[in-house]
């Protein structure tokens, strides 16, 4: 299918879903077949027109930007801190066999622990502000990056290492010119997952207790059974996640140029 027709078809799917949602929830439009009261469907499932109204109100009044900004800040901080810590720890454990052997059971234990249960502890340690959310995101991002770097460093080909040593790279040179670039390629290949998890950490953290952020908006609306606002929040989060993913793809394309793509032919 050509690009234009593909977009039209994708738009049609979106329109169809909204249409079905509208028809099934608009009070009095069709005879209710499940609920006894015609307003009940709208109460439980929201109404697309009202959800749209909430969205327009948020963006026109500008009240959403503060919350979006906070969620974005938490996501970026969690991503940055988690990536740097995972990178450092991964390099260290991959290059020091003794440290890896000692810490191995603890790394496994920490990784298999459900990280969400830490949220209340972080709330106590770091308060209800942004940092408790950042901490939750970091625990999610850290292990993704850590395992990728660990794997990446250990899979550097021994020939490549021997070659770099013959070319005059000392220990620090090997770290800078061989281990780090090799590990970075693994970090970039896990970028979609780690940015996504940083976002999850931020939103879940907000949802579990906060004073601002998109997760907080959803939590507030849920408390007053305002299902339309909950849906509006979910839509904003989804759109936002798509934008983040697009940004990651952009960086990936720029930094991973050296990696062969399957079936790539290039005229010399």
């Amino acid at each position, binding site marked *: 299918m050509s690009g234009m027709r593909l977009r039209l078809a994708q738009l049609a799917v979106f329109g169809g879903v909204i249409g079905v949602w509208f028809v099934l929830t608009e009070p009095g439009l069709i005879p209710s077949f499940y609920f006894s009261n015609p307003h009940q469907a709208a109460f439980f499932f929201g109404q697309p027109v009202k959800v749209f109204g909430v969205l327009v109100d948020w963006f026109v009044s500008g009240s959403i930007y503060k919350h979006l900004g906070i969620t974005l800040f938490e996501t970026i901080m969690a991503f940055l801190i988690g990536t740097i810590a995972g990178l450092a720890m991964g390099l260290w454990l991959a290059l020091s066999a003794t440290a890896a052997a000692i810490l191995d059971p603890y790394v496994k234990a920490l990784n298999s622990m459900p990280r969400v249960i830490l949220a209340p502890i972080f709330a106590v340690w770091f308060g209800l502000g942004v940092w408790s959310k950042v901490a939750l995101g970091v625990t999610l991002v850290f292990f993704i990056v850590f395992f990728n770097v660990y794997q990446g460093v250990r899979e550097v080909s021994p020939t490549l290492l021997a*070659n770099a040593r013959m070319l005059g790279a000392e220990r620090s040179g090997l770290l800078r010119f061989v281990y780090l670039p090799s590990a970075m390629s693994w970090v970039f290949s896990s970028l979609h997952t780690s940015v996504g998890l940083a976002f999850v950490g931020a939103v879940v953290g907000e949802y579990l207790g906060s004073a601002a952020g998109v997760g907080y908006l959803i939590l507030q609306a849920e408390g007053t059974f305002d299902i339309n606002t909950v849906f509006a929040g979910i839509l904003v989060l989804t759109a936002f996640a798509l934008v983040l993913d697009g940004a990651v793809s952009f960086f990936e394309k720029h930094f991973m140029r*050296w990696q062969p793509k399957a079936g790539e032919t290039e005229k010399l």
Partner: protein
Amino acid sequence: MTCAVEFSGVTCTFASRDNPEQRYTAVLDVSFRIEAGEFVSMVGPTGCGKSTLLNVAGGLLEPSTGNVRIFDTPLSGVNRRAGYMFQAEALMPWRTAEQNVLAGLEFRGVPMKEARERAGEWLKRVGLGGFGDRYIHQLSGGMRKRTAMAQTLILDPDIILMDEPFSALDIQTRQLMENELLSLWQAKQKAVLFITHDLDEAIAMSDRVLVLSAGPGSRPIGEFKVDIPRPRDVAEVRSHPQFVRLHAEIWSVLREEVLKGYAQQMKAAA
């Protein structure tokens, strides 16, 4: 003449990782010399420890006993006067051809501007001018070998170690590369230790051919001087009467070892 590489009584024994009791002696009591500017090839059956000897010469592997002297200095650590061209792919895939060629200069702290200039010259010399900005996956097998050759030779090493550098290439590209290597060597006259399983290649390129016995515990069992005049063309030299005579002579020694090595591998597999 000064002696570039001198092995005396080098033995390499490896302990099996799973069972330390089980030992394997790859090379046993190996002694030989390579003069400065001399091109020496080593041939032998598969698994006879040729690469082990090369790793020892490069300082990547410490011998169990015996010692190695490089220009009359005992070798410890990586051999700084040697360049090593590996059999397997050793280029850094995240660097372009140019960045790979200048890697050695960069590691040694040569200013980037000068390094790039010299890399550009070397890329032209190996016939890759204009391909400097290609990543490794965008280069063909032959181009990768040329890049590796430029990467090794740009540091102007006094000793060049080569581990079957052209074995993965098709025959035409291979002869082209062999001739290129010979003309580069002719201009610079470095000591070369060239490992190959191809007797034709060994005779066509070298001043001297060493034949290794089948492993385990392999060592040089024959030494042949190649007195075919230079400059040579690797394709034409094959019909030279000296070449034919040497080939028959060396093969009579090598054949037995090849069969022995083969029988041992079959036994190990059974």
